[in-house]
């Protein structure tokens, strides 16, 4: 096994074993705070000397969570709540819960009664996020979050702590963007499942450790010869493109993911936190700079324009829209975005993914057909 294979295996191992990661950090005497999707202010957790831990559900069956959530709430929140109730998140000091979609707006209340031993920290982002009033509001909410984190950490979080954290996070964003670029430049070098593991592992790792591993991988990817890739090249878009069966199908059918507009993947790394005198203000401004995500106010559907650009720049043959079942922001976006892709002459297909589903025969058929449409 060469070093790149070792690294890729390590990313996958971490991505598949979050509990082991949590235990490892706790054994080191570190505290961890859960960050439910989307865009939790992880830098504040890190600034307090704690580990932000991403909560994006898991491939499991919601049973207990069904006592709280109707069946038509997405599987990401169903399984996140399920894991909380079952005790999989025991060891987290608290869980941050944003309110960026309607299902999340109810999570705070449900969490407090179903997982009472892990405190919830609500996180409100402004939807009018590009305006000064919006930035001020998001910053005000981050300050409230900061106060809660200080209680948990048992120490004050200074502006210098936050600046340091921002700098570390921006450095990781930079290396992740280099990784993205290499995935586009050298299609086929990484399988879709390997590419996913690099992103997913970031949810369960100390940012410096993750950035270190990605830097090493990026250097190896730079050195690796760009072999001729003969398979279909796609850009993925959606909340998550993480289901093991979906990744297996993409691997088996020989697809290469040359770029993405996936919230769980690149959208967390595209926009740096601007360096401002008040570092929390910079963090709030960053929320206004994120594009391409269905849960953030986007009156001109820049997401569609961005997706068209990504597909063109990366030389993709088509776009795979990965719909998280019952995610209404994504379902709304589908119609105008599909139209924008059609108008640009970019082939696109949507597949629906439910984390609770074990079988994905329909996805396989759809992606086999799509490969044919793309001429492979």
């Amino acid at each position, binding site marked *: 096994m060469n070093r790149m294979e070792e690294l890729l295996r390590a990313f996958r191992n971490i991505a598949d074993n979050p509990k082991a990661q949590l235990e490892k950090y706790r054994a080191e005497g570190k505290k961890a705070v859960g960050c439910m999707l989307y865009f939790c202010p992880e830098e504040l957790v890190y600034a307090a000397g704690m580990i932000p831990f991403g909560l994006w559900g898991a491939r499991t069956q919601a049973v207990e969570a069904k006592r709280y959530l109707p069946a*038509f709430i997405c599987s990401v929140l169903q399984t996140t709540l399920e894991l909380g109730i079952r005790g999989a998140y025991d060891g987290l000091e608290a869980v941050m819960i944003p309110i960026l979609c309607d299902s999340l707006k109810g999570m705070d209340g*449900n969490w407090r009664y179903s997982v009472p031993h892990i405190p919830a920290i609500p996180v409100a*982002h402004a*939807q009018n996020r590009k305006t000064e009033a919006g930035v001020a509001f998001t910053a005000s909410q981050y300050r409230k979050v900061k106060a809660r984190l200080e209680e948990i950490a048992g120490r004050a979080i200074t502006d210098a702590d936050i600046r340091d954290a921002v700098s570390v996070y921006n450095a990781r964003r930079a290396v992740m963007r280099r990784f993205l670029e290499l995935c586009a430049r050298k299609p086929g070098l990484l399988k879709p499942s390997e590419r996913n593991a690099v992103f997913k592992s970031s949810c369960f790792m100390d940012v410096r450790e993750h950035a270190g591993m990605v830097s090493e991988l990026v250097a190896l990817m730079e050195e690796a010869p760009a072999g001729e890739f003969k398979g279909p090249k796609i850009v993925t878009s959606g909340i998550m493109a993480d289901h093991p069966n979906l990744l297996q199908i993409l691997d088996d059918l020989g697809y290469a993911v040359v770029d993405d507009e996936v919230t769980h993947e690149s959208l967390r790394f595209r926009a740096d936190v601007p360096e401002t005198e008040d570092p929390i203000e910079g963090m709030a401004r960053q929320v206004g700079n994120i594009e391409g995500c269905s849960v953030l106010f986007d009156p001109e559907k820049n997401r569609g324009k961005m997706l068209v650009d990504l597909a063109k720049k990366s030389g993709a043959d088509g776009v795979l829209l990965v719909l998280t079942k019952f995610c209404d922001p994504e379902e709304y976006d589908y119609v105008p975005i599909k139209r924008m892709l059609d108008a640009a002459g970019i082939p696109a297909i949507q597949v629906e993914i439910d984390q609770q589903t074990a079988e994905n025969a329909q996805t396989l058929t759809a992606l086999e057909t799509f490969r044919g449409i793309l001429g492979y």
Partner: protein
Amino acid sequence: MDDHIERKPAKIRLREIAEKATQDAWEAKLRGEKVGWCASNFPQEITTTLGIPVVFPENHAAGVAAKGGGQRMCEYAESMGYSSDLCSYSRISFAYAALKECPELNIPQPDFLLCCNNICNCMIKWYENLAVELDIPLLLIDIPHLDAFPCDEDRIRYIRAQFDDCIRKLEELTGKKWDEERFKEVMAISQRSSRAWLKAVSYAQYTPSPYSGFDIFNNMAVAVVARGTVEAAEAFEQLAEEYEENVKNGISTFKAEEKYRVLFEGIACWANLSYTFKTLKNLGINVTATVYGPAFSFLYDNLDELMAAYSYVPNCNVFERELELRVNDAIRHKVDGAIFHINRSCKHWSGTLYEMERQLREKAGIPTVVFDGDQADPRVFSEAQYLTRIEALVEIMEENKRKGARK
């Protein structure tokens, strides 16, 4: 007294106010004025003060569904690519924006959109899509979900800034000018309407209630969207007077014996309104509590409170406050049970109802049932399930009454 007899009944006046608002918008459109499509819980003080004609897609969708067009319009939107998972009001709205007409009910097409997400973020996505489809401006007043009650100063400041920004943009868009004196007047009228609305609704505390609870679903629309008008204030005051008179005379607009009193949770199933109502009526069940009364009262004494009031609508408040409102209403209005509508269209409202149901049952000491339905898409509603659940509730309420009588 003679004067009272001569007057049109309040419910007719309220219906006429709603119809006139739409008519006014049509006439404004014909005059060449710009007409907006507006979220129902967008601060009406802004549009009323500026005198900007607006119509309400939510009310339109409910009206279309009540007249039998819900399924057809939803299916049309699905043929456009919209998932059947999405809010049925929004599906009807997309279909209407594409078709431009509908045999059940027509409203003028919009020149701009006024969105407010205090009831749900689905509103944002719905209006984003309309803005792109129709290529028209979209203004959003973002009211973040509360994490504590009352609304905090950060939220008030943020809402206030958006309020001011929205006024400025609407002035540019429509050429109309903001008038502070008129604004004060509109606020005063709105308060008068809200107080009258609350008073009218509160008569359900009497036994028997002087009105059928389903009346609230119809009257609420005016309380929400037209309360800044003198006509609405007067009509609500008359409604309260009529209910008071009914209490004195021991009569009710509920035309059956009121054997049981219930809290009804959630939006009405507009496409199945007749069945849902008649099933209750046939079993002698009157709705004497809904969250619509207290939650849509919009009471305030100053500008900050006005901003805060818009975060107290259902779906925007912190869970414990939402629960408190329901428990208080259930106790004050002496309900024997509660019916929870798991509304397929509404992820946020439905997403907390199981816990709400458990806690209400315990805190108010009443039996509860849930049923599956939808605000406008009849395909989701099952008459058999509804009937079975309601009959089960009746059995428990009856048993409780027997036990109570024995004590």
